[in-house]
């Protein structure tokens, strides 16, 4: 009996478009007309400028398709096809197809492809649509590079278009105006030696000179803005925008190592304005009512969805979510201050509003709780606590309306314990570090990821200084934190599977936070505090730990990759939840993930486990509980 039916291959084709649309009798004959090839990760299945004669179908593994400029066109696992463009439109290939993991591919000869296309219109239509899509996304990928990623990746240094034009302070106003006219510029830097001591703008000439009747023969130093706000060259375009809108300035001198390298104007930023992030942040800052702020904050999930769709990196997306969150919280605080003033509470005392946890680390995802606290200056008048209490209540309610749930652990400025004078905070931190009680340290770990958001930053700086000095010597404290960092085991099962929740509403789901992102954050924090590192950002902490040798450099780099990948999966999941109207969480069903994602996740969890083991080995007092 003759029987060469390749059932496994035929069944696979039956599950994937456009083969599923073919009559079964035709489909069953296809396997025998195909070849199977194995493509190692990183090798090319097809290259720009090279002829291709097959339609390739990914049987297992994953491929990435990029256009000639390197823009990502498509990425896919089982069932993804490649090669139809050359079969229909002619050789050579205009795309690079690379295996991004070890890939088994079915190769269908061009002749069979043409035979099927002419006999079965549905089959041909599928590839027509796919090619149209591909070209569209190739085009939009280019647009993303010009606009979307620009705002995230562009630094102040990149935006500077020419070296700064400078004058010494004794130059006359008239001469300064001539220089500006000759150079065709709207601002001029006034320097002494190499240091920027002032800036003169068109507007200054109009208001402070002409309108005020000042003699143009006087020195430029008499009408310039002294000690202007400057931006470091590495600041992102987004941060520049925040600074400009908050300080109401239109020109920012950019300095590198203390020396001016140029000026960035609002116009420079407007060239990047197509990005929604810019609109949202800019609009939030202009809102006069809480309702307006809330409405804008509610756009965050949609924004994340867009960024995920544009293939923007996870670290950049969490930075955007953080920036939007910062803008919302700052605006709500400012509006609350206005309302308190209107109700007769007077002007605010000297205080610093600090954010804690993921927001402080610039790693906020969707659905995060609000975590904040207030440092009141020691010299603030009596009654400052009551003022902050009233302020905090307003802000907490506003944030909740904006989609940031109240903190379940009550770590909010509305809790009397978390609005203290500086001396009280210093005492609190000293106790956590030098006389740690295990449970207290666990609850307090969030306070070691803090960042000043608004108010007098020197209050926060004083606390940060204490932490960096005390923490490296707090061996018990570090041991408690270390133990906590290794306590949540990554959800890896025996046979390379995942450990899933067994029952309840989270049945069959995988927690990407506990044992995932959370564990990486915990490990990074221990390494940072051990060495008295100031940064609270997890990526910076890990890379610094790799440099100082606290963590092996390769493990540090792998942890950064693991953080990026898990965060990416988490954001994709959250964006989908938000789009379907449910509350974003960190629990995914492995069955919803591609084989590629599952394997990469397992790899990431293995890296976390290695980091936890390394932590135990590096400090004998850290033990698994």
């Amino acid at each position: 009996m003759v029987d060469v039916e390749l059932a496994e291959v035929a069944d696979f084709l039956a599950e994937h478009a456009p083969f599923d649309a073919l009559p079964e009798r035709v489909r069953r004959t296809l396997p025998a007309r195909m070849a199977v090839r194995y493509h190692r990760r990183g090798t090319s299945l097809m290259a720009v400028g090279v002829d291709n004669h097959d339609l390739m179908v990914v049987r297992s593994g994953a491929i990435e398709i990029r256009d000639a400029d390197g823009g990502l066109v498509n990425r896919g696992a089982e069932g993804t096809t490649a090669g139809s463009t050359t079969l229909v439109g002619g050789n050579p290939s205009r795309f690079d197809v690379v295996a991004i993991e070890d890939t088994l591919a079915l190769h269908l000869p061009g002749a069979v492809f043409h035979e099927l296309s002419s006999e079965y219109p549905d089959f041909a239509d599928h590839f027509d649509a796919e090619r149209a899509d591909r070209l569209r996304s190739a085009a939009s990928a280019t647009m993303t590079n010009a606009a979307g990623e620009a705002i995230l990746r562009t630094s102040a240094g990149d935006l500077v278009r020419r070296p700064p034009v400078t004058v010494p302070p004794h130059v006359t106003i008239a001469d300064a105006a001539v220089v500006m006219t000759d150079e065709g510029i709207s601002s001029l830097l006034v320097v002494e030696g190499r240091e920027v001591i002032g800036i003169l703008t068109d507007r200054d000439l109009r208001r402070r000179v002409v309108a005020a009747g000042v003699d143009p023969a006087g020195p430029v130093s008499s009408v310039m803005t002294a000690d202007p706000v400057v931006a470091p060259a590495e600041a992102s375009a987004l941060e520049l925008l925040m600074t400009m809108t908050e300080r109401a300035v239109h020109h920012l001198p950019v300095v590198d190592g203390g020396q001016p390298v140029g000026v960035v104007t609002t116009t420079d930023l407007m060239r990047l304005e197509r990005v929604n992030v810019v609109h949202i942040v800019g609009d939030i800052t202009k809102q006069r009512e809480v309702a307006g702020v809330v409405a804008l904050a509610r756009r965050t999930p949609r924004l994340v969805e867009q960024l995920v769709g544009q293939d923007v990196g996870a670290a950049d997306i969490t930075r955007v979510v953080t920036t939007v969150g910062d803008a919302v919280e700052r605006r709500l605080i400012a509006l609350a201050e206005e309302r308190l003033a209107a109700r007769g509470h007077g002007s605010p005392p000297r205080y610093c509003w600090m954010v804690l946890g993921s927001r402080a680390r610039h790693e906020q995802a969707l659905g995060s709780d609000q975590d904040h606290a207030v440092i009141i200056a020691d010299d603030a008048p009596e009654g400052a606590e009551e003022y902050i209490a009233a302020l905090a209540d307003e802000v907490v309610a506003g944030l909740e309306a904006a989609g940031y749930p109240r903190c379940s652990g009550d770590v909010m400025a509305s809790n009397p314990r978390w609005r203290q004078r500086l001396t009280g905070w210093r005492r609190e931190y000293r106790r956590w570090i030098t006389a740690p009680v295990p449970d207290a340290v666990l609850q307090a770990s969030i306070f070691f990821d803090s960042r000043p958001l608004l108010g007098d930053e020197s209050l926060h700086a004083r606390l940060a200084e204490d932490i960096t000095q005390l923490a490296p010597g707090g061996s018990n404290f570090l041991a408690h934190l270390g133990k906590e960092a290794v306590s949540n085991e990554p959800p890896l099962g025996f046979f390379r599977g995942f450990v899933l929740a067994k029952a309840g509403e989270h049945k069959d789901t995988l927690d990407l936070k506990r044992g995932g992102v959370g564990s990486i954050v915990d490990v990074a924090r221990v390494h940072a505090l051990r060495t008295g590192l100031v940064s609270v950002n997890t990526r910076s902490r890990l890379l610094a730990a790799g440099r100082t040798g606290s963590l092996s450099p390769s493990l540090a780099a792998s942890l950064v990759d693991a953080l990026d990948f898990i965060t990416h999966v988490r954001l994709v999941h959250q964006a989908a939840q938000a789009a379907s109207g449910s509350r974003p969480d960190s629990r995914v069903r492995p069955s919803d993930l591609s084989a590629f994602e599952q394997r990469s996740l397992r790899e990431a969890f293995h890296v976390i486990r290695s980091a936890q083991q390394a932590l135990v080995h590096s400090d004998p007092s850290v033990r698994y509980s």
Partner: protein
Amino acid sequence: MRLGLGRSPQRRREAALAAAPPGPLRDYLSAPFVGPGTRLDELPLLALDVETTGLDVERDRVLAVGWVPVDGRSIDLSGAGRRVLGVRMEVGQSATVHGLTDDAIARGDVPVTVLAEILRVLRGRVLLAHHAAIEIGFLDAACRRVWGAPFVTPAVDTLALQRRVLAGRLEAHPELHPGELRLWAARERYGLPRYRAHEPLTDALACAELYLAQTSELSRRARKPLSLKTIQHT
């Protein structure tokens, strides 16, 4: 098993050829074997899998066989084949493994015809199997019964290759569990698709795919093109 270990397949082929009567086995043996220096990129193989009534090559019989050619780095599905053999023997409990019923066997092909066909498709190729001793042992016993001469073939064993792949990573896997070498476990390591086991053509395809993955990994480690000599099963 009488495999004439210690001599090269070429030498054993010549010895067997002298003993074989005219017919399919003699035709097969008269073609020279693929040279050991042949690069893997050009190596012709035939992945083969047999389903049997048991593991005793003298008493048990082959019930079904599946094969698929591998040309260098490409599996040629158009050359795939599958045959059920009409052996005059009760299948018994082994049906629970291979799923072949006595009725299916009764409609099967004449065993000698299938044996001749296997020798024809294997000619000029290297036999490829997972735990190749089983396939070689059954083919040898059948050839000896029918033609009174031994079956000889150059062979590549994916089970032995898997041991080598894993041994190369000893730091990471201090203990090698026997289960890790099984065809389906080995495939899972490479993320290859899950198939239903014990259907001879599927098993042959599974073995061929595993071979491509394994040799791809070994070539990467060797950083140079490998030849049959380096992966041959002896």
